[in-house]
């Protein structure tokens, strides 16, 4: 079957769900919304799986190289002869992989929500928003044009806004939604300007053309962009850095990550879908899309590397101190995305040199499974105890066996313990880093130990720590619809690591065989086990050791607990500086100076006219006097000027 005959259905079916459920208001499909949404997504997911099978195993390879296929393309808006926004569908290894990830995780979330969101007043609105998000995310991953990506980029942003603010009666949710949108929009400003630079200087908005031109050192566009510089930095570096700012905002990279922890105000399945598995990796995906161009620009690639590595370690440290289960997971997401980011940064191009790239995509893939599993598990826990705080949990292992078991699998995966999925992808990242960038390698190594620690801190605190208290939690683990996704994702977490990624996703489409080095893995795994053991000592049973450690650390602990005061810095800049020192004066200036002048003219006119209105008194004698006076004056002037 030809791709173009059905491929558009993959994004369009969720869109149809959005429109149908959205137009129906909150009552029309009150009972059936979940079923409709899930069914549509099931078809989408099946089609995506079929596409992946076709692409990877049947006809994607031409002479052993995976070729990009443009399955669909039309001009949506034309700016000038060579610049236009084309809407298209491009199939290449990463977009096909993302199609599978997005539809599968979204399907799991749809199913999970059947139970989790049951009885919610705006149940059908919820499903319509999920449809909108899935549509936008799919549109993003299949984009053939950099402006198309930007369009869907904004759309995922707004779906995220709507879903974070889903519980709109809670001021915290509204504030979080607003924050997420504004912070990412600020980053998107960079993206937009980057697009303008790339588009106008590169002479095209099409990904293929751009990559072709900007990787060829002889092309006039690249020559021009390298030769011209602004503030001492070449235009091409500016363009790539600006685009990367957009990616960093969406992927919650330091220092634009502040929105992600707050975004946890949204319903938990939403966090699993948007803020763990799909939307937040869009930044990584964007860099991967433009990777060949990045590869030829050392400086931009260094920025990507360092931002990624810093985010990975900072987020991991903060995660150790947080007490809200979802916030811990949020920071862990940020940290893992940092891994994917710097993996791209340390990657080479072509063949085995592109290991970092493959590893990054591999980690993106496995992370989608275990992180959404963690979030859905957290959702099940929250569903049971009605609290996000770790202190309200503990001893849940007997109450919720399925959740407990799958959560453990996911924790082992993220800690990098073999044979779970995270182990394989993280090993590849570490290997790539150790080959190309030793400093980054050590940062990543330490971070992976911290990761194991905070994840098992979470695990022990939730499921052990206290005695099981059956009276306090009268109802059970949750509906079947909540357990199925956990089990399926758990299976994914067990198996995904065995996929030979290097023979599917590579920088240049040419498959290669990646070696597995047992000796290399010993150190990271050992560090992981040390992390787990530390967590065991501190959190398996109730004790005062964590307390003592945190008071010993004192200021350092506070610093991490307060998230390095980054939020406070932002608040200071926005509230104090932008609002008070820019906005208020502007508004005042407008009302008092600009408008004051206009009113002043009116007042002056009015007072002049009232001053001279006495002249028009209506007395004929006076007019006669003016008349003759005037004639006299004119006559005098006339005579004088004439002579």
């Amino acid at each position, binding site marked *: 079957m030809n791709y173009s005959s059905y491929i558009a259905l993959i994004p369009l079916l969720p869109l149809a769900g959005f429109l149908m459920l959205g137009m129906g*208001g*909150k009552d029309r499909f009150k009972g059936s919304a979940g079923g409709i949404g899930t069914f549509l997504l099931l078809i989408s997911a099946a089609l995506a799986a079929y596409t992946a099978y076709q692409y990877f195993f049947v006809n994607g390879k031409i002479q052993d190289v995976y070729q990009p296929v443009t399955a669909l393309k039309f*001009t*949506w*808006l*034309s*700016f*000038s002869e060579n*610049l236009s*926004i084309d809407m298209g569908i491009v199939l290449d290894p990463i977009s096909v992989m993302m199609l599978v990830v997005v539809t599968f995780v979204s399907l799991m979330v749809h199913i999970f929500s059947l139970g989790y969101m049951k009885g919610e007043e705006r149940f059908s609105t919820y499903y319509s928003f999920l449809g909108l998000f899935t549509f936008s995310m799919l549109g993003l991953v299949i984009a053939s044009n950099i*402006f198309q990506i*930007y*369009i*869907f980029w*904004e*759309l995922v942003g*707004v779906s995220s*806004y709507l879903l974070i*603010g889903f519980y*709109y*009666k809670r*001021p915290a949710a*509204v*504030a979080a*939604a*607003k924050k997420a*949108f*504004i912070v990412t*929009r*600020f980053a998107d*400003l960079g993206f*937009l*300007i980057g697009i*303008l*630079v790339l*588009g*106008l200087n590169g002479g095209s908005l099409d990904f293929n053309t751009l990559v072709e031109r900007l990787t060829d050192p002889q092309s006039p566009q690249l020559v021009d962009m390298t030769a011209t510089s602004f503030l001492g930095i070449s235009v091409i570096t500016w363009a790539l850095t600006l685009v990367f700012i957009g990616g960093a905002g969406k992927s919650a990279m330091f220092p634009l990550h502040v929105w992600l922890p707050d975004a946890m105000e949204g319903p938990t399945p939403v966090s699993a879908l948007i803020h763990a598995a799909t939307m937040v990796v869009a930044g990584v995906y964007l860099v991967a899309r433009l990777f060949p161009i990045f590869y030829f620009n050392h400086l931009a690639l260094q920025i990507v590397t360092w931002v990624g590595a810093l985010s990975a370690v900072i987020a991991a440290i903060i995660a150790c101190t947080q007490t809200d289960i979802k916030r811990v997971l949020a920071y862990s997401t940020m940290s893992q995305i940092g891994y994917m980011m710097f993996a791209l940064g340390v990657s080479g191009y072509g063949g085995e040199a592109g290991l970092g790239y493959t590893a990054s995509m591999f980690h993106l893939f496995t992370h989608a499974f275990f992180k959404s599993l963690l979030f859905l598990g957290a959702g099940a826990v929250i569903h049971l105890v009605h609290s996000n705080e770790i202190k309200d949990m503990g001893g849940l292992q007997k109450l919720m066996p399925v959740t407990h078991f799958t959560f453990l699998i996911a924790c082992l995966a993220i800690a990098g313990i073999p044979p779970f999925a995270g182990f394989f992808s993280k090993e590849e990242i570490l290997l790539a880093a150790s080959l190309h960038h030793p400093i980054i390698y050590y940062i990543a190594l330490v971070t992976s130990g911290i990761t194991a620690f905070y994840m098992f801190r979470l695990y022990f605190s939730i499921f052990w720590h206290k005695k099981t208290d059956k009276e306090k939690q009268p109802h059970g683990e949750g509906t079947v619809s909540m357990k199925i996704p956990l089990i399926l994702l758990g299976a994914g977490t067990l198996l995904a690591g065995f996929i030979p990624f290097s023979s599917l996703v590579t920088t240049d489409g040419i498959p290669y065989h990646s070696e597995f080095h047992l000796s290399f893995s010993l150190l990271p795994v050992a560090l992981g086990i040390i992390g787990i053991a530390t967590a065991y000592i501190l959190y398996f049973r109730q004790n005062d050791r964590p307390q003592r450690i945190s008071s010993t650390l004192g200021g350092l602990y506070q610093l991490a607990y307060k998230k390095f005061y980054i939020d406070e810095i932002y608040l200071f800049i926005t509230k104090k500086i932008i*609002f008070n020192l*820019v*906005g*208020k004066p*502007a*508004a005042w200036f*407008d009302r008092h100076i*600009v*408008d004051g*002048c*206009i*009113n002043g003219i*009116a007042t002056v006119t009015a007072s002049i006219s009232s001053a001279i209105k006495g002249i028009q008194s209506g007395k004929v004698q006076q007019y006669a006097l003016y008349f003759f006076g005037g004639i006299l004056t004119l006559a005098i002037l006339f005579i004088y000027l004439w002579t």
Partner: protein
Amino acid sequence: MNLLLLIILPLVTALAILPLKGLKQVRMIAFIGSLAQLLLSTGLLIAYWKERSSGNMAAMLFEDHYTWYKALLINFHIGVDGISISMILLTAIVVLAGVLVSWKQEKWNKEFFFLLILLSLGAYGFFISLDLFTLFFFLELAVIPKFLLIGIWGSGKKEYSAMKLALMLMGGSALVFVGLAGIYFHTDINGQHSFDLMQIAGTRLPLEVQKIFFPFAFIGFGVFTALFPFHTWVPDGHSSAPTAASMFLAGISMKLGGYGCLRVATFLMPDAAHEYAWIIILLSTIAIIYGALATMMQTDLKYINAYSSVSHVGFVILGIGMLTKTSIAGSVMQMVSHGLITALFFAAIGMIYDRTHTRDMARLGGLLKIMPFISTVFVIAGLASLGLPGFSGFVAEMTIFMGSWQHADNLYRIATILACASIVVTAVYILRAAGKAIMGPVVNTAYESLGDARWNEKLAAGILLLGIVVIGVAPFWLSELIGPGTENLIQKIAAVVK
């Protein structure tokens, strides 16, 4: 297709309203009349496509000449191109929506609808005029009804606002008139002066003349389109006006200015436009950023939309000032787009105000629970206004950005970056307003018994939204519609730039 119908139809409707008695009759006639306007303009659109596809590439279609005042060679010369048709369609949609939201207009309803329809007459006349004098005539025709609409049916400090608006617009008109007279007296077509736009466009006015009269014409029209620093009538005027008048003011009236800047000032005096481009860009960039910052500080919903209009219409002027084909096309798109979006926004605010009798954000809150439809419309209007893809604003703004970036000059680049930056500020104030007024807990429990939108309001929101979404989802037809028109403009400008 006879374009005179566009003038006759509103005239007949307005006159037919006068002898009627009772709100029901009046609004029915007004509704039928404005619906007929919409059908007529859709018919015009179809006729236009037919002409174009049959290969008629004339600059103006459906032209007509009537001698009006022979001594001064004032002709009633009318004709349309894609740009004017998009403006006419915009007018028809906004007027119909305006009639629908005024469905319960109790006080002096006959006079209200009469004036509203009269306004549309002025707008149509303006957009089809190809003679500078008649163009000016229709521009004036659209000022007095606004004064009355605000002064009589307005709210707040309505007398002050009405007076301010009328005086400032009259002042703008005076400048326009000087500009037009200057053009007239310096044309020499077969030994005679001319008011004919197309004839003048065929010649090239002397540079000195252009340099003197371009500022008059541009600033004069600029007052209508809230050019900084002549924008101060906008916040007061928009917020004091009754809902339908606000919709008309922001939706159409400001576009008269933008259209004038483009069609008259820039088209007829391209040398001067090129010469003064940097001033235009400077002023419009100030309007964009400064309008957005001032919006951020407002607490009254109408003031928010009024100030944001200053910022958004700044894009129109920016696009014109950039003088590239793409930017001018974007500028026209922005006129249509902003007209629809702002009308939708004012409609939603009006619906909220009708029920709660307040527009103060702090006293609203949690409306989504009480009136889901109106709240959704408000949020959608907000999202459209902040340039979300899928709505018309995105398309227009991106086209302007693309067009502006084509200049490699630093001033132009900085202006473009600042204009881009304004979309972040827009997001701040829109989401702040939505967060306070629409979301959150219900602040005033007395509101809980209030009803949601009625059918007429739903219909009004629906047609506006349809326009916004159609442009946003399928922008290609709009850019094709205005393509030949902008091509004509740009050819004249390109001749100068080279």
